[in-house]
């Protein structure tokens, strides 16, 4: 039964991804049309400039020469085909993880394959955001439980207030403040970037990387853990009102075990799904925060692609994000079913 549910849910997710990609390709293709054509003209000019024999040609020959290159490029970018055909082709290639070549960017190894560029950015985002979110989840859950345990105490109220405050702050602005304080005023941490220039080697590289990592990491944690603690607190308090928790107490189960055994285990389905989605979604990076810290991960890549109007990179990155998101939603449904013995099938609803 469960296996069947998994299959249906995954098919559902794949369909959703396909529809989304189709819609996005339509938008991007129609918009990038003009951009691509301008791009082609640039490349034609570049070809003309670098071709030594060009100056010797007469006017018609010159025009022919230019048209030849142009046609060549048009067919390379499929600009000679009708737009719907391009959309379909584009969708198909995206769905087969073929994102094409970047128009303007290249990876550090010099490849201009979108896939390489994205794969270069992904581990950096994992290093920053996935690490940060893992710490956030850990701190948040621990604090949330403590707050629920002493509901109404100063700790509890403090956490609620902190959650309200921190969820009102833009993370990227906190990042700017951190730079102002720790880079400009105190000069403890670098203001941004992945490593110093020129990058050191060996163990020093790792230290340098961690040194660059610290401030963005602290920023993400500082802004995010309050909300986590608050959510956990509410979940735990909700569960603590269940009859079976009273029964566990009446059974003489020690308070610690009631909390970490019964309450937490019963709150596990929503918590675990929240953790899974948070971790999965962290892979997409945070566009603005990464831009503030000049952290060359997925988020900043996305931003650079927008600024440079590099449609293939933009599309590739969007697809990866959408894929992660939809996949996270599916996993969320599925873990719920796994963790709650009452729900073998049927998902969240």
């Amino acid at each position: 039964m469960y296996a069947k549910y998994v299959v249906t849910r995954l098919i559902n997710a794949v369909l959703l991804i396909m529809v989304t990609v189709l819609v996005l390709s339509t938008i991007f293709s129609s918009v990038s049309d003009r951009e691509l054509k301008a791009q082609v003209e640039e490349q034609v000019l570049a070809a003309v400039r670098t071709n030594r024999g060009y100056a010797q040609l007469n006017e018609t020959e010159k025009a022919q020469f230019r048209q030849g290159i142009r046609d060549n490029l048009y067919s390379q970018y499929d600009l000679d085909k009708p737009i719907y055909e391009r959309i379909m082709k584009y969708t198909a290639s995206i769905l087969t993880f073929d994102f094409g070549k970047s128009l303007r960017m290249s990876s550090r190894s010099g490849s201009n394959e979108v896939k390489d560029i994205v794969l270069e950015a992904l581990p950096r985002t994992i290093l920053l955001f996935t690490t940060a979110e893992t710490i956030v989840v850990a701190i948040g859950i621990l604090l949330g439980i403590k707050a629920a345990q002493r509901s109404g105490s100063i700790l509890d109220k403090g956490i609620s207030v902190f959650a309200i405050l921190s969820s009102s702050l833009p993370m990227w602005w906190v990042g700017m403040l951190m730079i102002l304080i720790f880079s400009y005023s105190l000069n403890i941490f670098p203001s941004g970037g992945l490593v110093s220039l020129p990058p050191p080697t060996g163990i020093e590289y790792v230290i340098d990387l961690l040194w660059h990592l610290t401030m963005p990491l602290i920023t993400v944690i500082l802004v995010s853990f309050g909300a986590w603690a608050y959510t956990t607190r509410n979940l735990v308090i909700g569960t603590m009102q269940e009859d079976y928790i009273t029964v566990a107490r009446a059974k003489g189960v020690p308070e610690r075990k009631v909390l970490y055994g019964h309450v937490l285990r019963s709150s596990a389905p929503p918590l675990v799904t929240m953790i899974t989605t948070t971790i999965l979604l962290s892979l997409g990076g945070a566009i603005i925060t990464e831009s503030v810290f000049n952290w060359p991960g997925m988020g900043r890549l996305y931003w650079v692609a927008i600024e440079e109007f590099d449609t293939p990179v933009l599309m590739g990155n969007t697809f990866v994000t959408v894929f992660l998101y939809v996949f996270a939603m599916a996993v969320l449904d599925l873990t719920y079913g796994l963790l709650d013995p009452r729900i073998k099938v049927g998902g969240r609803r």
Partner: protein
Amino acid sequence: MKKAEERGASPKVALSVENLKLYFYTSRGAVRAVDGVSFEICCGQSLGIVGESGSGKSTVAFGIMNMPPAPGKIVSGKVTLDGVDIFKLPEEKLRKDIRWKKVSMVFQGAMNALNPVYTVKFQMTEPFIYHMGMKGNEPEVVERISKALESVGLKPEIMDRYPHELSGGMKQRVVIAMALLLNPALVICDEPTTALDVVVQAQIMNLLKELKRKTGIAFIFITHDLSIEAEIADDLCVMYAGKIVEKGSGMQVYKNPMHPYTQKLLAATPLLHKPVDRLEFIPGAPPDLINPPKGCRFAPRCQYADERCKTEEPEHMIEVEPGHFIACHSVRW
């Protein structure tokens, strides 16, 4: 209380509750849910606490366990269980030595009394771990769980199931089996059959009667149903608006109810085999326990109420016959 001696049960007092007060502190004021309740039970005996919704009967149970549900607080009183004044014990000792070991509970609504994410076995193992210092995987534990399940008429195999895989009656049996695991001195049954259909209810009642006879455990039965109490309670307390208005042996209360509330309540109970033309009812509604009436709490609904009833609370219960008490100014006997 004569009956107990006749049956040869030990006259040793299993539980005594003296002047228990448990208030809920809400934003509107203190709700006097249990307001000066006293009673005692002997070993092997059963006591019924009967009352309508909001009479505070379930809250008494939590008071005995010293587990007032939030925002409740025990204001005063003394609960002596097996010779131990449990309000004087530190929480840790209470947890280790009293709860479930000395007094266990069968909760209202078995559906919610079992944790949905744990198997029956896990939930039945816990008392052994926390009171007997066992690991929980010894064959002895499994053996005792099997025995307990069998004693309530369940197959031991069901211990590997999750609560949602059991029917309502089975869940109620599991909950009863769980309460008996450690052979406590007292089991409190809070509405043990309310959510069940009449046939299953009769089965569970039979089970409880058997257990009562076999085990020598003292039982408290809390319910709103006078008929069910009649089947099992040796002694009976009738509660109204946070107070006991009448207590005595089952025989005394049913045959010779003295408090106007008890009289009316019995007259309002339809009997299957003794049809009447007209059932009685009590006009009005129970009082608001934040601002209870000054005098007797039943006075506004009582046909015998006079000036004294409206101004003066019946502080002490009057013994109308040996072992039969009422809290009433007006009834003449």
